[in-house]
C-alpha cells in the first residue's frame, strides 16, 4: 500500500505542474454526462495518458480527460471518463482518481453514473440521488494491507453519502421544479446487462437502481474521509416482467436527456460547499 501512496504522489505532482490550484471538489462524470464540463471555466485539461499510473480508458462514452478549472468561481477538477471493473481493472485501480483528487486537496466528491431503474416509479431521464449503496461487485478497493496514512482499516459505512449535500440537492430540485428520486444504488460487475431474474434479485434486495460503477469510488472516498454526493441518471427502466432489449447506445442517448438537471444540481451543490 505504500506503493499506492507513492503512485498517488507522483500522479498529483504531474497534475500540479499543469494546474497548481487546490480544488475544493472533484466530479466524476458517468456515461454520456460529459456536458457538465462546458459549465467549467477551464484552466487546464490533462489527458489521462499524461497522468502517471492512470490506466487506459476503453469504455463506450468515456473520454479519458481531467478538466481543471472553476465552476461558478469554485475550483474543481472533473474526471471525464472513468475506470470500470468490467474493463479488467481491479477495484483499487478503478478508484485511483478519487485518491488523486483527495491528494490534490478536494474535500468533496460528486459522482454521477448512468443506471437502470428497477424501482417501478422511475422513468427514463429521471435523476436519483443515491441515498445508499450495495456492493455486489465481488471486489473491494480496500482489499490488501491497509495504509493508515490513507484511511482506517475498517471504514464506517453507516452513511457513505453526505446527508447535508443530499439535502442541498433535494432543495435545488424542488426550487427548479423537477423530480429528484432518492434511492439505493446496486453495483454489479457487468459488462452484461442484467437478466430478468437478476433485476428481480436487485429489487428483492432493496435496490432502486443498478449499474456497473461508483461503488468502488465511493468506498475509497469514505476511506479518505471525503464528503460524497452521488447521482444516478436513469437511462433505462428494468421492469423484469416486461423487459425490452437494452443497448449501450440507447443508454448514452438517454443519459444526455438528463444533462440539464444534473448540471443544475452539481453547480448548486458545489457552490454551496
Amino acid at each position: 500500500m505504500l506503493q499506492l501512496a507513492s503512485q498517488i504522489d507522483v500522479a498529483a505532482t504531474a497534475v500540479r505542474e499543469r494546474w497548481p490550484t487546490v480544488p475544493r471538489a472533484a466530479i466524476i462524470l458517468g456515461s454520456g454526462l460529459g456536458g457538465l464540463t462546458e459549465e467549467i471555466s477551464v484552466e487546464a485539461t490533462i489527458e489521462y495518458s499524461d497522468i502517471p499510473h492512470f490506466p487506459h480508458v476503453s469504455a463506450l462514452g468515456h473520454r479519458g480527460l481531467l478538466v481543471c478549472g472553476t465552476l461558478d468561481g469554485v475550483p474543481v477538477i472533473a474526471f471525464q471518463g472513468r475506470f470500470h471493473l468490467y474493463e479488467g481493472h481491479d477495484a483499487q485501480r478503478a478508484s485511483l482518481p478519487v485518491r488523486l483528487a483527495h491528494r490534490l486537496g478536494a474535500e468533496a466528491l460528486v459522482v454521477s453514473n448512468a443506471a437502470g431503474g428497477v424501482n417501478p416509479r422511475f422513468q427514463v431521464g429521471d435523476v436519483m440521488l443515491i441515498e445508499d449503496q450495495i456492493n455486489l461487485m465481488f471486489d473491494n478497493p480496500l482489499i490488501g494491507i491497509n495504509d493508515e496514512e490513507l484511511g482506517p482499516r475498517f471504514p464506517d459505512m453507516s452513511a457513505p453519502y453526505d446527508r447535508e449535500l443530499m439535502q442541498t440537492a433535494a432543495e435545488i430540485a424542488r426550487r427548479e421544479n423537477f423530480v429528484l428520486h432518492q434511492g439505493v444504488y446496486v453495483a454489479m460487475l457487468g459488462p452484461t446487462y442484467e437478466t430478468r431474474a437478476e433485476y428481480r434479485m436487485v429489487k428483492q434486495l432493496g435496490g432502486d437502481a443498478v449499474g456497473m460503477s461508483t461503488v468502488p469510488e465511493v468506498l475509497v472516498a469514505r476511506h479518505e474521509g471525503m464528503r460524497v454526493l452521488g447521482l444516478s441518471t436513469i437511462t433505462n427502466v428494468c421492469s423484469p416482467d416486461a423487459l425490452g432489449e437494452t443497448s449501450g447506445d440507447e443508454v448514452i442517448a438517454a443519459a444526455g436527456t438528463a444533462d440539464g438537471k444534473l448540471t443544475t444540481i452539481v453547480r448548486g451543490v458545489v457552490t454551496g460547499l
Partner: protein
Amino acid sequence: MLELHDQIEAAADAIREEWDETPRAGIILGTGLGGLAEQIESPTVIDYEQIPHFPTSTAVSHRGQLVCGRLEGVPIVAMEGRFHQYEGYSLKKITLPVRVMKALGAETLLVTHAVGGMNPQYQPGDVMIIDDQINLMGDNPLVGINDDQLGPRFPDMSAPYTPELCEVAQEIARRENFVAHRGVMVAVTGPNLETRAEYRFLRMIGTDVVGMSTVPEVIVAVHCGLRVFGLSVVTDMCLPDSLKPAVVEEIVAVANSAEPKLRALVLGVLSHEASRG
C-alpha cells in the same frame, strides 16, 4: 483480445483437420449426462489435450473429449466433459469452447448440467428448462477489453435462453408425458455445496435450482449471437429445512436415470433447429 481471436482460430483449425463438417449446433454435456454422446453417429472423437488452448477436464464423471458427428442426422459437436470455475480456470478459459463452436459454424448452443433443486415442487430426477439465470460467480467471462469482432461491449440479457426453444421443449415433454419444469438457475462458484442459510438466500432472490456451471457459457453464447437452449437435471433436493448430506455418487446416479428425458428434449430441440432451414 486479439490473442483470444487467435486462440479460437487455432482450436477451430485443429478440429477441422479431424472433422470437416459444419456443425449445426454445439452441445455441452454436464455431470452424469455423458451417455448422449454414445448415440452420436459416425463420431470423430478428439481429446481436449489435442486441441490447442483447451483446458483439461478434472471434474468427477467428466471425460474430457470433443465428439463430432451426427445426432438424428444433424451435424453437431458435443463436449463430453466441461470446465468449471472451481477447478481454478478463469471464465474466459472455460468459455473458449463455446467461441470455438461458433467459429466452426454452430448457430445454437444446447447446454445441460446437474443442479440442486430448491423449488419444493421439484423432485430428484426432474428436468428443468432454464428460463433465466442469475450470475453469482463473482466474475464474468467478458471482463477485459472487448473485441467488437466477437460481440458487443454490453450484451443485452433480457432473454438469454431463446424463448422459442423453451416452448418447443415444453411441447415435447407434454407429448412424451413427463414433467419438465421451467425456472431460474443460479450459478455459484463452489466447489462446496451450499449451507442451509445459503439455500434460503438463493431461494429468496428468486431462483429454483443452483449449479456451478452454465452461466459463463451462456453469457459467451449470447455475446457471440448463438441461440441457447439450457436444461438442468435436478440430481438432489436442497430444502434448507430438511437438508441431507449430498453424496456425489448418488447425484451422478440420479443424473443417469434422467437421461431418457434429457435425450428426448435435446434431440427434439435439435430437430427443430435443423428444420429452421
